[in-house]
């Protein structure tokens, strides 16, 4: 028994990559719904750490009901297995809650090029008060069209193709598009 345990530890130590390498591997995992950005650019991987011979990857959900969450977990595990990691633990972390502020700057450009207007920081809904202020001042949030760049766009629905996006339409080029709304 002791010999078996020793030999396993020996093997595992020999292949245990450092966490920077693991982060790099995870940066190659695309978001299943927006494949132009990776899960690390999306900011949902919160921590990577070795606990003994187990690699613990901490992931936070974007929205609590996001159906992509289980797909993302599956893809993380698949990627790490491909790289030869045997013992993997995926940990869900709710706090602090994910924010669109965590999306990497370069990823925002990728979103725009893909046809999704990136989130505008500091414009998260705060309940009815924010809506009232917007209605009273008559200054709706300006979301430039990702296709033609015109600021003349209108909100079609606060909920678009997924919970994390709102549906907009450009009044200039008439293109309907998704806005990655701020939370």
């Amino acid at each position, binding site marked *: 028994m002791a010999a078996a345990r020793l030999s396993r530890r020996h093997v595992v130590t020999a292949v245990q990559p450092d966490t920077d390498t693991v982060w790099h591997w995870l940066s190659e995992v695309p978001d299943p719904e927006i494949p132009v950005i990776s899960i690390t650019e999306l900011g949902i991987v919160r921590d990577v750490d070795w606990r003994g011979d187990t690699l613990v990857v901490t992931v936070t959900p974007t929205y609590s009901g996001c159906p992509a969450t289980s797909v993302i977990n599956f893809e993380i595990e698949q990627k790490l297995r491909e790289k030869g990691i045997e013992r993997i633990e995926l940990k869900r972390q709710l706090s602090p809650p994910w924010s669109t502020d965590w999306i990497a700057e370069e990823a925002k450009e990728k979103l725009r090029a893909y046809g999704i207007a990136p989130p505008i920081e500091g414009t998260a809904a705060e309940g*009815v008060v924010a809506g009232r202020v917007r209605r009273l001042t008559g200054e709706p949030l300006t979301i430039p069209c990702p296709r033609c760049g015109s600021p003349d766009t209108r909100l079609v629905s*606060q909920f678009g193709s997924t*919970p994390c996006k709102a549906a907009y339409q450009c009044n200039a080029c008439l293109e309907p598009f998704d806005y990655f709304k701020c939370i």
Partner: protein
Amino acid sequence: MPSLPDIMTPDAEALAKAAGKGRRVTLPAGSPEHDLFTGLTRMGDNTLILGHRVSEWCGHAPVLEEDIALANVALDMIGQTQLWLGLAGTVEGHGRSADDLAFLRDAWHFRNLLLVERPNRDFGHTLMRQFLFDAWHQPMLKALEGSSDDRIGEIALKAGKEVAYHLERSADLVIRLGDGTEESHAKMKDALERLWPYAGEMFLADEVDVRLAHEGLMPDPAGIRPAWDETVAEILAEATLNRPDSDFAHKGGKQGRHTEDLGHLLTSMQWLQRAYPGATW
């Protein structure tokens, strides 16, 4: 076999116990664990039942954008349900998962408000129900952020970000339909009058609420009323709708005494697990 309890049944808890005798260990009523379990199922059952109701619209909404919005709001609420009922199962300590609690309990074990089990009726009625709920849900989650139990605070903070968008949407649509055409105004007025008697239950405390509030775990329901009143007054005024005078409130949902409609909802929602116990994919 006892008949199904409804809001006229004096002691749904006793009926439920008799029905479940010998099947499962239950936490002693009045114990701190039982109180917390009850409080968590109240939160999770609200989002589960309303989430299911809203999901009934999938493929039936008046326009595509609203169909998608309804499905997304339902999805948020089902996600929140997984968090609340997941924690409830952990607190109970008998190995029940969020799925077990959602699909394998009978009507008398549900602790949701009567408001959320009201049938959808028309689109305006669905949105009015959503608005009356969201206007409570948002300040309720805000208060829960400060819970003495960090696990509750974390869920509340996460859910609150999503609910802020629910409230913006439902409030905007109540205004647009209330202050819309003659027909949409009449439908919203009718919806408000039908739903109003179910709003008061949100603010009524029972002994479980009192003990949870005393422990700093969950807020006193009455404390949520001023924020709700303010939002409702503001939005109804913009929607050119009059707040009904009567404060009569149907109650019992939080204690397991439901309307007939919950049973109908459960037969649909729980059908698969009842017909094929343990089925997974």
